[in-house]
């Protein structure tokens, strides 16, 4: 299959059974990881430090080589299709470091020359939108972290990529810069052509822009799901102590992700409320309290549950 054919048919990003271990490390950065990001959608990647988010993004960009498994970006292998495929990819690292001695104007010209689809008018618009016009003559090394991230984002967006890989672009930014970056991102995604993989510690950012959410922990996918479904499905329930025996019998296969026995009652994280209600024994006291959770609560509860 040619790169062109692959790119017309494939999903934005597909990973199947991908494992990666860094040289000299005993632990796996990613272990048997599978996920798919459809074209035109935003995948929010959540995970603690060292969970494997950066590794995943760098593998998709072809910066790292997987030990095993299959990776496809727009249907093509990022390792083999290298430079041709990267014409359709935008990448922003966690702390963008370009060349400190070069001015933004020079860097923009250098990057523009690499992308046939570079849209200069759109780039100018992004510079205006991100308050970067006055910095064009400045050297990259003189910029603040926020300005560096904004400039890297403008470079990554100006060639209208089909896949945008963003590794914690909002971490370490002040609230105003974060809001600016997110709003530019949302505007850029309006055409529905660009798929985004967006990793972050800041769950509210992911909640704001993601269509799908993947939570990874210690290199494995804990959950990957449509954000709305996830927010509707996962709840916290407060149950009577009498339910403890039944919960133990239910085991890990049931709709209960995790539960904790308190002095008077049980707090449980329910993965599927409908299934839970259908299974809940009639003999046990009702009603029980159910609380909807935001993405941060779900993320913390899921990763904590795994640790226990």
């Amino acid at each position, binding site marked *: 299959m040619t790169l062109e054919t692959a790119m017309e048919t494939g999903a934005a990003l597909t990973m199947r059974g991908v494992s990666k271990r860094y040289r000299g490390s005993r632990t796996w950065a990613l272990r048997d990881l599978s996920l798919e990001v459809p074209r035109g959608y935003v995948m929010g990647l959540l995970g603690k430090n060292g969970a494997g988010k950066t590794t995943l993004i760098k593998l998709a960009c072809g910066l790292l080589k997987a030990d095993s498994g299959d990776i496809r970006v727009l249907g093509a292998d990022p390792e083999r299709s290298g430079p041709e495929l990267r014409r359709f990819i935008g990448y922003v690292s966690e702390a*963008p470091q370009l060349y400190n001695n070069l001015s933004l104007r020079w860097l923009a010209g250098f990057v523009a020359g690499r992308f046939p689809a570079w849209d200069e008018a759109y780039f100018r618009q992004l510079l205006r939108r991100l308050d970067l016009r006055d910095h064009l003559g400045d050297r990259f090394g003189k910029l603040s972290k926020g300005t560096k991230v904004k400039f890297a984002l403008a470079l990554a967006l100006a060639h209208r990529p089909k896949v945008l890989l963003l590794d914690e672009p909002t971490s370490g930014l002040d609230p105003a810069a974060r809001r600016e970056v997110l709003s530019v991102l949302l505007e850029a995604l309006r055409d529905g052509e660009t798929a985004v993989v967006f990793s972050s510690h800041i769950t509210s950012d992911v909640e704001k822009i993601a269509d799908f959410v993947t939570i990874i922990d210690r290199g494995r996918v804990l959950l990957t799901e449509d954000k709305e479904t996830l927010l509707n499905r996962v709840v916290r329930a407060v149950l009577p102590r009498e339910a403890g025996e039944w919960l133990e019998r239910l085991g890990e296969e049931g709709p209960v992700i995790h539960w904790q026995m308190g002095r008077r009652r049980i707090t449980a994280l329910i993965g599927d409320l409908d299934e839970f209600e259908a299974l809940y024994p009639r003999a046990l006291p009702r009603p029980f309290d159910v609380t909807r959770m935001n993405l941060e609560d779900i993320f913390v509860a899921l990763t904590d549950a795994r640790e226990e």
Partner: protein
Amino acid sequence: MLALVLKDLYEQRTNILFFLAFPALGYLVGPPLYGAFLILLPWSIAIRATYAEDRGGLEFLCSLPFSRNQIVTAKFLLVLLLLLLGVGEVVLVSALPPLEGTQPVPDQALWVMPVTVAGFAAVLTGAFLNLFFRIGYIRALNYSRLLALLPLALLIPQVQQIVLKSGVQLFLTSDPRRLALWVLAGSLVVYLALLLDARRVFGQKDIA
């Protein structure tokens, strides 16, 4: 690839200009300074250029539509270009009429010395670049510093004697032009081998 070489030349423009001023000093002081210049120019610029890559430039380049081979080859081309520039400048300055009170540059020093030293500088800098793409900036710098200290061994009387006894001196005085061409040819072969090896290794490397 040309874009990558131009990027390095532009980024290092101040440093390159600084080093290009050395032969003017050499004109006043004499040929030994030309030799130091020809070693320092490519070596120092390569070190500074790879420092910028080590600080995040390499990750940035690898995320753009450049192949790994292009990135490696561009660095080796940059060094060759700097050497050509350096040798050209030294030959040009050496050909100028000597200043009053200074020794005229011997005929053979016009191109024999620059070409021989350029061969050594190419191998030294090629080895540094190869190590950079293989094991990273800091370790490459440490190893190549050790390599750069090798000529200083000639200052040790015992080593001087060995070198003299080995007959190199005889060869130098009998036909220095032939020796210079052999050194150059050998250096270029080693340089090419270092480039090919760096391309092979870097193609498989993680940009972490």
